[in-house]
């Protein structure tokens, strides 16, 4: 399950970074592509703007097949205050740009990618490919919400993966 979550996040991040390299955030002093998984970061009251924040919410398991099929709900939250130099009047356009980026990367083919194991990766060691794939449905967008000068929206994607033997 964790491998599928990691694979989906890395795929989404790399596709978003390729589509719009200018969308970045600063996390602990380092500039990164503008995506993060909230449960993997230090708890903080700070909410990054103009970036995609992933939360893993729902989970369903179907054991009818030879391997359990997991359906994981990924909630992608994003918000913008607009550009301060423009008095925030462009916040609708900035939210629309983020909508379009998400539609583009999640709708792009293929909707599937080999599941990778990142647990031993890092420090020059590449992740190892596993035996099954991760695949996902089209995103569902909630209505945009205005909180003061802030515009925010949540997109939900169902991510599917088979739970392989011995996998956590």
């Amino acid at each position, binding site marked *: 399950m964790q491998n599928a979550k990691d694979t989906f996040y890395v795929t989404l991040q790399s596709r978003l970074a390729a589509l719009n390299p200018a969308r970045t955030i600063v996390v*602990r002093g380092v500039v990164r592509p503008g995506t993060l998984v909230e449960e*993997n970061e230090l708890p903080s009251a700070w909410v990054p703007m103009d970036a995609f924040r992933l939360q893993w919410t729902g989970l369903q398991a179907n054991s009818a097949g030879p391997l359990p099929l997991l359906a994981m709900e990924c909630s992608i939250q994003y918000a913008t205050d607009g550009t301060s130099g423009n008095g925030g009047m462009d916040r609708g356009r900035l939210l629309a740009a983020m909508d379009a980026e998400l539609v583009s990367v999640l709708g792009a083919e293929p909707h599937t990618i080999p599941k990778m194991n990142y647990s031993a*990766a890092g420090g020059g060691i590449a992740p190892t490919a596993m035996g099954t794939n991760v695949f996902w449905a089209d995103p569902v967008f909630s209505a945009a919400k205005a909180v003061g000068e802030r515009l925010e929206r949540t997109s939900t994607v169902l991510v599917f993966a088979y739970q392989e033997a011995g996998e956590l």
Partner: protein
Amino acid sequence: MSDLVSATGAAARATDVLLRAMGGRTVMLRMPAPAVPTDVTEQLGIAMPTFQDIPLGPVVYRKARATVAEGKAAKWELLVSATVVESLVGSLTYASASVLFAAAYGVLSDDELLEIESATQDQVFGQPYVYRLVLRAPLSQMT
């Protein structure tokens, strides 16, 4: 006269004296190590950053008792010397005090780690003389 006050940081020094006179103490600002840009395992929650505790003082709690509301974590307001904040911003090479406090993991006070909810500053002649941190107790201690 105003130029003299502005240029010499007299307001910040006067605030330091007041903070010390009111029983100023030292707390620790817990800072995570900078992220590793090319290491995806940090973004996946596999590799954990190391932490560094930096003394922050003189500081004073604005009220002796925390602000407590049912169903919410207790909150404290901490007044922090602008002199020490400015020196930390310089020595740790952060762009500003707001970036420093946004990057901090929390404030360690009496062996309790409090999360920084907000950081604001009071200024005189465009120079900060005191910082106000709103600190939140861990959710495990929620009433």
